């Protein structure tokens, strides 16, 4: 007993005298990168730019960027560290941007390092920049740090805008899933201000197509159960417009004969609220008319989009997954052969619940 009381403290003091060998990362003695961009140089090299916010005591934020060129992203960090006063850490990266050119040359290699690194969270946003990715990061705007600004921008567009849910995890999910292709938001810098313009579609890791403005809403509806504040408008007749925003939309698949050339039916149920109407009076009949008209427009848009996707041979909607979960011993190769030629039929059902505060 006596021995124990002497030995224990001495052992404790021995090992606690600082040989745990952990590298401390004291908050104000490191540089925390919040956003990183990658630009294409040639097949093996890329330029990487990191944004590091410097918080000023007067609550202002200075975004400082560091750029380096290399062939490995960890190597890049080394080169950036040579330029800074404090070591750069990547644990709080919010957004990672890739230029379209880089994205055209397989992103798989780039995302692999992100998944492997446990300090990078699964909820990081990936995005494609239409043009040079560096441009989005180098220009100072507003009084916030760049990473937070971009991630907030993407986040609110997911919650109530045109973007379907996206992040590193979902990207890797789609990349690895057998019957699905990933997509990422696409950003276009305009005078340095980033504008989210649509969705970039990938074939596995390669960027192939950028959605047009009129495709965005229907794309989101087809990808997931969504609610959307943006809404959509239609021309009902001459000088007669109606605009609604959907409260909720639900997509369901009806595949009577999977893995054959028979048609796949996609049912889209939308509940919406009338927001704008240039006609004179809204009554039941009128609403029915608007519903019908809009259903037709949406159906056409959806079918057109799907045909386009088939032509590009990408499957961001995950139709392959729908078929796979309906077939035993599914064969990926066979499906890839089938996919471009399957006829799709989209049934849209629009239900206008409210017509606003007036009749």
């Amino acid at each position, binding site marked *: 007993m006596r021995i124990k009381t002497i030995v*224990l403290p001495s*052992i*404790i003091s021995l*090992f606690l005298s600082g*040989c*745990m*060998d*952990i*590298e401390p990362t004291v908050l104000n003695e490191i540089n925390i990168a919040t956003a990183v961009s990658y630009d294409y140089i040639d097949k093996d090299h890329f330029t990487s730019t990191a944004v590091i916010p410097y918080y000023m005591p007067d609550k202002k934020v200075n975004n400082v960027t560091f750029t380096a060129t290399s062939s490995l992203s960890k190597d890049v960090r080394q080169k950036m560290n040579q330029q800074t006063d404090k070591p750069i850490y990547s*644990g709080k990266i919010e957004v990672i941007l890739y230029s379209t050119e880089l994205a055209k040359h397989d992103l798989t290699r780039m995302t692999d390092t992100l*998944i492997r690194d*446990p300090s990078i*969270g*699964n*909820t990081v946003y990936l995005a494609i920049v239409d043009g040079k990715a560096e441009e989005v990061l180098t220009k100072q705007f507003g009084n916030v740090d760049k990473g937070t600004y971009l991630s907030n921008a993407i986040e609110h567009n997911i919650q109530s805008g045109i973007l379907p*849910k996206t992040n590193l*995890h*979902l990207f*890797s*999910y*789609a*990349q*690895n*899933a*057998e019957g*699905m292709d990933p997509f990422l938001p696409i950003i276009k810098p305009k005078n340095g201000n980033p504008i989210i313009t649509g969705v970039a579609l990938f074939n596995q890791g390669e960027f192939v197509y950028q959605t047009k403005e009129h495709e965005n809403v229907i794309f989101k509806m087809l990808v997931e159960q969504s609610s959307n504040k943006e809404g959509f408008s239609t021309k009902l007749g001459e000088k007669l417009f109606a605009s609604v925003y959907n409260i909720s939309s639900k997509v369901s698949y009806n595949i009577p004969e999977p893995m054959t050339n028979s048609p796949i039916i996609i049912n889209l149920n939308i509940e919406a609220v009338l927001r704008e109407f240039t006609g004179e009076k809204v009554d039941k009949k009128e609403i029915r008319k608007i519903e019908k008209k809009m259903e037709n427009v949406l159906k056409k848009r959806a079918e057109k989009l799907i045909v386009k996707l088939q032509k590009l041979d990408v499957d961001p909607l995950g139709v392959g*997954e*729908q078929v796979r*979960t*309906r*077939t*035993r*011993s599914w064969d990926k190769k066979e499906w890839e052969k089938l996919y471009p030629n399957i006829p799709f039929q989209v049934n849209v059902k629009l239900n206008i619940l409210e017509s606003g505060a007036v009749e």
Partner: protein
Amino acid sequence: MINKNEQISPFLVFFLVLKVQIGVGVLGFQRLIIKSAGNDAWIAVIAAGLLFSIIIWCMFTLLNSQKQDLMGIHTQLFGKVLGGFLNMIWITYWLLMGIAVYRAYVEVVQAWMFPQINVMTFSIVFALLIYYTVSGGFQVLTGICFLGVIIPSYLILTIFFPLEYTDFRNLLPVWNHSYKEIALATRDMSLSYMGFSTLLMFYPLIKHQKKANKWAQLANILSLLSYLLLTIVSIGFYSENQISRYVWATLSFWSIVEVPFIERFEYIGIATWVIFILPNICLFIWAATKGTSILFKVEPNRISILFLVILIVMSIALKDRETINTFQDYMSYVGFILYTVYIPILLCLSYIMSKIRKKTHEN
């Protein structure tokens, strides 16, 4: 013989069994079973659970008929020399299991938190913690098992966060794999359920031993349910190829969890895991210590110090992931045989022996 104060009430067996069944394996068992059984992995989880329900029943039948711990059964059935040898096998198994669990945890710490951590100093700290628990006696051990279930139970709430990204269609089509694949997954899954063999040692310390079976079965069912829940959510959350790349799938979906005051929940999870696995390791070390002290009649505290030194040395020696994996695979293989082959055989033997003894008694 046994002090009444040392004994525990039978319902605490529930926590003892539950605690050893849900251990470090929870962090990454999904990869193993999904590799072979894909979206049908959940069937393997149920199958393995039911298998172990039978084994628990076997153990209790054996113990209830013999009314003593494994050490005693061995010496009674096989005599001093052979029995002693078999005892040594079990003692080694428990000790190595303790080390395997501990090393697996250190590996998680190394991979996620502190890649440069000095394994030796960390092991010394942890060994002190284990010694402090084990030397407190079985009551303290049961206590830490109990708290080790209660305190980290808040983690179950985190299962709601990944649901947002979960697609349960992935479970379809049901039974898309061959029996062989599912059997393979069941074997892989059984590693996660193992650990309650320490029951063979603490059986005499239970107050109303006959009632304990019920609680052990209940614990087995609860761990089955929690594994099932985790498996189903994981199947929905990850695509099949994706999960095969994640060594610690549970940790990866904790990084989805975000609350206003904390992000990157996996770090909190790893810290909480200390309380989660400490009882596990302690129980194994305790069983090995107890066995040895009965076998060689040495003071238990000295043996536990020796074992802890072995634990420290072994965890330094097991350096890279490959050796750790080989070690763990080997352990799970040995464990599987011990549980599914050895225990039933022992049960049969003890049954036959008791019959023979009865006959000779009658004659």
